[in-house]
């Protein structure tokens, strides 16, 4: 029970998460995103084993962003009518704007919680394999993406190396952010040139070992959709439906 979300088929999870987010976009009452957010938290809490400290740390910037949304919508909200319920520093806030602002804030929270649910319970390699096997992403793209993913640590080391080499030759360190932005070209060109060469070598090696990029029916490591995935998808959709319906009733 407690690892259900980890074992869910990644493509099914991906579709459910995307559908939920697109559905949320139609609601401007505060209750729908709030209830959905609570529902997702409950699902994550009961059906997965994750590091909650790390989760809280990753949630932090989004919480700040949500606060940004709250006051932006209050100050620059659309003139949508409704009763004035209060004013602060000469800005009058109507009850409509108040509801919209909280709705967008909870939407940010619900979206980020849903994203973290996906990120914390999905194995990246299984995800791409599942995209290829269930959603028919062409093998060329799937494996090309995997190459990029595997090269990440190499390219990170290369960035450090390029910086050290430049420092050795007397390029001064950037102290301010505008210097850092202006200095990115100095780092980007060698990084990209290295990437071009690595890509060529990797592609050549793959083709030399018989990779043609044609579609297969059988896979070395099959990723399957089981009955459990349908049940889980149903649970997610039920949470979504309940929060939409409850939001419509309470938003009146």
């Amino acid at each position, binding site marked *: 029970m407690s690892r259900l979300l980890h074992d869910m088929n990644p493509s099914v999870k*991906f579709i459910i*998460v*995307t559908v939920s*987010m*697109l559905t949320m*976009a139609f609601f401007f009452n505060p209750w729908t995103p709030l209830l959905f957010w609570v529902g997702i938290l409950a699902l994550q809490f009961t059906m997965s084993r994750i590091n909650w400290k790390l989760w809280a740390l990753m949630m932090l*910037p*989004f919480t*700040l*962003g949500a*606060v*940004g*949304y709250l*006051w*932006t*919508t209050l100050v*620059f*909200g*659309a003139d*949508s009518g409704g009763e004035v319920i209060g004013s602060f520093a000469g800005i009058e806030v109507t009850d409509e704007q108040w509801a*919209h*602002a909280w*709705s*967008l804030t909870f939407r940010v929270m619900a*979206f980020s919680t*849903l*994203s*973290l649910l*996906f990120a*914390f319970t999905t194995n990246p390699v299984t*995800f791409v394999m599942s995209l290829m096997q269930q959603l028919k992403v*062409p093998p060329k*793209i799937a494996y*090309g*993406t995997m*190459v*990029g*993913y595997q*090269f*990440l640590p190499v*390219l*990170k080391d290369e*960035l450090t190396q390029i910086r050290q080499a430049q420092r050795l030759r007397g390029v001064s360190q950037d102290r301010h*952010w505008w210097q*850092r932005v202006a200095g*990115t*070209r100095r*780092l980007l*060109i060698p*990084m*990209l*040139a290295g*990437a*071009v*060469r690595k890509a*060529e070598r*990797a*592609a050549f090696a*793959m083709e030399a070992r018989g*990779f043609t990029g044609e579609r297969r029916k059988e896979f070395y490591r099959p990723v399957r959709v089981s009955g459990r995935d349908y049940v889980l998808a149903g649970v997610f959709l039920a949470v979504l439906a309940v929060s939409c319906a409850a939001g419509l009733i309470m938003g009146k």
Partner: protein
Amino acid sequence: MLKSWKLKEIVLMSLFGVVFGIVYLVAIHFGNIWAGLIGPIAYEWMFGIWFIVSILSMAIIRKPGAAVLPETIAAIIEVMLGNAVGPRLILSGVIQGLGAEAAFAATRYRHFNLAVMMLAGAGAAVFSFVYGYFVSGYAALDPSFVLLMFTLRVLSGAIIAGIGGKYLADGLLATGALRGYAISRTKQGGAGA
């Protein structure tokens, strides 16, 4: 569409996606906190950074799809790395890529000069804004504020992605690493026909 693509071109786009992922993290982490404090408008001026990979890849590979695919692959990789924006990033990647692709398709993939690239950057900005308007609920904001955000994003797309992409493509061409790609086959290099 994929038939005419060489594997090395696809792997190239994927590695570009990774490089931009890294550089993005290095360049941007300074701005995250104040971006949180001043609300969604803080991200607008730097939106172009996300579109560069489309424009750079198209400048180099010059095939239909060379704008949509890298943006999509870059988004998949970011999701694989556990990006906290989550799976919807893939959808926004496809949409941004289509915006850039539209500009190149409108010129029938024949011109790759600065003007077309700036147009592609602006196209990506327009597409991504329409999508953002829907998903992030900009409808709840004041129209003049939304207009300001829109203008900032289009400018960012045209300047950062258009000019920046062209600048990087020319710089990369000068290193000689791009022999064997379409960009080296035209006489004027990046200037296009």
